[in-house]
């Protein structure tokens, strides 16, 4: 879902860049204050994992592929602000080194896949584990739901930005983006659940740390 340059108009580029700069600023401040010593290496591991996992495009219907975003996983393990910082690292590196996502569109990409996906994923996970209790099953179910919603919402924001920029009418681009990402979100859900299962089996203590 990395937006290249040319899809967004100046107003959308400026607005999303401003929101993302603000979001990263807030994340830097909060992470600096609250991140625990045990969580420092986890930041590195999650950024590395999300980068590697994003390279693995999996096929979805009709000659289309998708890859995970990873923001929901990061937000579940570390909290939404830490996830914003991790996603910003990944997206900035992908943009500057790998030419994935446009330079001018970087703010929009950080907003959609960083801020929107992290916060929506985090609060969906919190909601499910609050309703269903703090069990292994609710962690896995909550992880799946969080991952699916995070992809869908990110794609909806992406579609709105494309429509506002005049690239494609909202009535066309919104159902198209939401439709394909509802499918990609299932892949995100399965991978997020699998990783959470692995963490529960090997380092369940990580899920008990304070989220940032």
């Amino acid at each position: 879902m990395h937006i290249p340059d040319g899809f967004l108009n100046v107003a959308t580029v400026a607005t999303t860049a401003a929101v993302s700069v603000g979001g990263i600023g807030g994340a830097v401040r909060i992470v600096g204050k609250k991140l625990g010593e045990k969580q420092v290496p986890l930041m590195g591991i999650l950024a590395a994992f999300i980068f590697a996992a994003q390279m693995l495009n999996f096929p979805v219907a009709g000659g289309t592929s998708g890859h995970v975003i990873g923001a929901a996983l990061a937000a579940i393990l570390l909290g939404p602000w830490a996830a914003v910082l991790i996603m910003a690292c990944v997206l900035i590196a992908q943009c500057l080194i790998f030419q994935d996502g446009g330079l001018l569109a970087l703010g929009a990409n950080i907003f959609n896949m960083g801020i929107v996906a992290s916060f929506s994923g985090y609060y969906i996970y919190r909601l499910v584990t609050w309703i269903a209790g703090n069990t292994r099953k609710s962690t896995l179910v909550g992880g799946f739901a969080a991952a699916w919603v995070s992809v869908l919402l990110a794609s909806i924001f992406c579609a709105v930005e494309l429509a506002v920029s005049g690239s494609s009418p909202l009535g066309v681009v919104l159902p198209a983006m939401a439709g394909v990402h509802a499918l990609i979100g299932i892949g995100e859900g399965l991978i997020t659940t699998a990783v959470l299962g692995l963490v529960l089996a090997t380092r369940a203590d990580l899920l008990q740390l304070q989220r940032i």
Partner: protein
Amino acid sequence: MKSKWWLISLLVCLAVACISPLASSSPDGLERVAEDRGFIELAGEAPYQVIADYVFPGVANEALATILAGVVGTLVLFGAAYGLAWLLTLRKRQLA
């Protein structure tokens, strides 16, 4: 045991990067929508290229070039996010 967990996790990430040549090369969700709805031609080229499209430059074997790009990126991101988190919590540790 705990330091071993981080090392194993990083090795798993590198292993994931090494299977990247198996990834689907079909357009992703946004590219597909842009193609179908006729706005893909709006996309501009990047003004410069480093490891464009996750293919390490100057390596003839494409699978190897993709793996190299994946390994480099995975290590860069581990270092960058670990380093950033370490720097941001530096003051907190000094106060403690």
